[in-house]
């Protein structure tokens, strides 16, 4: 955290990689007073990225803190700020404030089996966590990754899949919503795959991240499968401006998504209103 909470540091774009047709991944180096500075963070945290003169957006960090080097952000073009980001080139400067938010409770997750469930761009925050888990493979039990998207070309971070599959005691289950040419994997919505796999709760934590409708069904299915509310972890999305619990926008119940979240256990979610 920089000393003046609303003043961003400079994030210099080092490279840009296409994730899907509407999503780019920016690799940035953080600079302060013209010098590169380290940036430490936890999986699941986010940062406020800004295009100077256009605005600021909260974007989750998709790189992994266990791997030294640049910080990565996957940005889907949805509004003005993200559109402006998509028009940037390597060498350009973004503003960055962060890391913000609570991140995943990695220490408490140690020693457990983990079921990752992700849909679409929802894999962006999970990717950091998955790589964290795989980098500390011995600290965790069995790993299952269920990931789905509408179509094969909308699967994010496809370059990671082979590495994940190759990791010990790790399985990757990919799915797309509807049959498509050249796709030999399973077809169906993510909740259906969750049901089909029917991984028993036991010592397992489920971490789900994706569009609200997917989360809704996944949570129901997990509850039906006997997962306890404490063992289900998800992330919430809400409009944010300051990212530090002051501007008041992301307030739901007594929580502020930006500081109390975005990662919540289902047991915590049940203490706040379900509609906002």
């Amino acid at each position, binding site marked *: 955290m920089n000393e003046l909470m609303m003043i961003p540091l400079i994030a210099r774009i080092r490279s840009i990689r296409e994730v899907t047709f*509407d999503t780019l991944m920016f690799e940035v180096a953080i600079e302060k007073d013209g010098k590169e500075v380290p940036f430490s963070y936890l999986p699941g945290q986010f940062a406020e990225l800004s295009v100077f003169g256009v605005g600021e957006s909260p974007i989750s960090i998709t790189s992994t803190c266990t791997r030294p080097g640049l910080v990565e952000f996957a940005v889907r073009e949805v509004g003005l700020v993200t559109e402006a980001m*998509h028009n940037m080139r390597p060498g350009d400067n973004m503003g960055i404030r962060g890391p913000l938010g609570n991140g995943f409770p990695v220490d408490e997750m140690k020693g457990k089996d983990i079921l990752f469930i992700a849909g679409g761009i929802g894999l962006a925050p999970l990717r950091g966590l998955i790589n964290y888990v795989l980098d500390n493979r011995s600290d965790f039990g069995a790993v299952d990754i269920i990931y789905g998207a509408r179509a094969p070309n909308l699967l994010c971070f496809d370059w990671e899949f082979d590495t994940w599959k190759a990791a010990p005691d790790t399985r990757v289950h990919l799915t797309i919503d509807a049959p498509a040419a050249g796709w030999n994997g399973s077809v169906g919505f993510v909740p259906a795959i969750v049901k089909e796999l029917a991984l028993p709760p036991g010592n397992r934590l489920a971490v789900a991240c994706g569009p609200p409708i997917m989360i809704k069904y996944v949570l129901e299915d997990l509850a039906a499968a006997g997962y306890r509310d404490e063992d289900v972890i998800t992330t919430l999305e809400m409009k944010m401006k300051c990212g530090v619990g002051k501007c008041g926008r992301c307030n739901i119940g007594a929580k502020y998504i930006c500081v109390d979240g975005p990662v919540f256990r289902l047991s915590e979610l049940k203490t706040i209103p379900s509609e906002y």
Partner: protein
Amino acid sequence: MSRVKVGVFVCHCGSNIGGTVDVPDVVEYAKDLPLVHYSEDNLYTCSDAGLTAIKEKIKEHGLNRVVVASCTPRTHEELFRRTCEEAGVNRYLFEFVNLREHCSWIHMNQPQEATCKAKELVRLGAAKAARLRPLEIARAQIKPACLVIGGGVAGLSAAGSLAQQGFEVHLVERNDRLGGLTVDLWKLLPGDRPASELLHTLTARVTKNDNVTLYLSSELNEITGFIGSFKATLSTPSGKKDIEIGTVIVATGAVELEPLGLYNLGKTEGVITQMGLEKMLSDGRKDLGDVVFINCAGARGPDREYCGRLCCAVSIKNARYLKEADPDARVTVLQRDVMAFGTEFETEYRKAMCAGVRFIRFSPDRPPTTIGNDKVTGVRIYNQLTGEESDLSANTVVLTTPLAADSGASDLAQMLKVPVDKDGFFLEAHLKLRPVEFATDGVFIAGAARFPADIGEAVAQGTAAAAKAAAPMFAGEVSVEATTALTNPRLCSGCATCEAVCPFGAIEITQDRHGRPVSEVNAVMCKGCGACAAACPCGAIQQLGFTDSQIFEMVRSLARDGDPSGSEG
């Protein structure tokens, strides 16, 4: 959604631009503009070398927006758009900046200021270019069938002409016979041809052609759609009938005004209208005695301001027939002034005068009055010049009344979404520039429905409308303006302001799936003027290629992005 990469090509145009504006300086300036990836100058951008350069640079740098700063879009826009297209960039991702007509030529003695202005113009162009979105030119299929509404002379001419050209024609006539007003006419000017003869020719052309489907005693009930694909419902004696057509010609004609009470019309025997006279003449009656015509009856007054145009010619014609038929009868035409336009009518006028028809001017301040209680015996007229009142003997008084709009015209106008003027006549797109056409594509107008027309004019207009309607039907499709209006239903309040201001009837308020009113633009009918976009308070309707966002960005950049001659440059 790929990244915006603007390329800027600045033209010297020989010395036309380069002689005044420091082109290399402008190129350098352009390089620093937001999202501009490449910038160069060309001696002549429109030359083969220039066009090739554009194409090469598009490929080399992955440019996806092109700005050419050279002359006026009025001459070269199409050329550069095609060039972009050839290089795989959508033709609407091109923006033209006019440095010649709008800068170098008009500031020839101020090279410094001109250069500064050129930079700003390029900046605005690049700002707009960055916000351009690809657009598609839509095409609409045209069904080669035409609905002609009205079986008078104009309608018959139009229908005949189209049928001869091989198009399917649906001719709808309200009455049980064709011919309209002409049916009741006796002889036609010029040439004293019997009206029936002409009518026979015109009717035969239609009835003998298999391409024409005739609907007598029928009316148009409903019509929807737009150029190329209208759907109409007719009510015919044999029930409702649905037809599909590509074009529509309105030839509903007009009616003769019968101003009951005026000059005792309908009260005193012997006071009749021209149409009444024509019928009498057709029936062979010639025993009319002394006849006085009163022209401008019901026209050119406060209630009906327009001149009936044909009335003078009609009264001249009939007065001469009467005089010739009975040289002893006194035939007098009371007129406010005589409008015998064209040499033919002028000759007719002289013939009538020479035949002994008296033309006497009266003033609207003291109009003539008829004499006689039950039966008319004369007309009292005041002579302005002599200041004398005198009586003319008359056994028959003929009122020359103008043609007036049919009372059904306004309903039809609403159905077709075309305008009528204050007298109820249909209003064409432009009196001089676009006659016989409506602003609405695919709908045309001919004959007296447009304004009082004589037979010759009705024939000419009918044929002209047929020619206009034939053009798109021959082509089989029309390409549609790409820079049309488009509604964003999320922002639309359904207030119908856009519908009201659209001159082309291209916008309609429909309901969205929640039953809320929402405006919908028919892209085929839209001409892309943008009047709706400026009127919409919500900013819900936008003109593609000229969106609020694009124009705003230009304004913002002009106002806020600094003066290139200053330190920021």
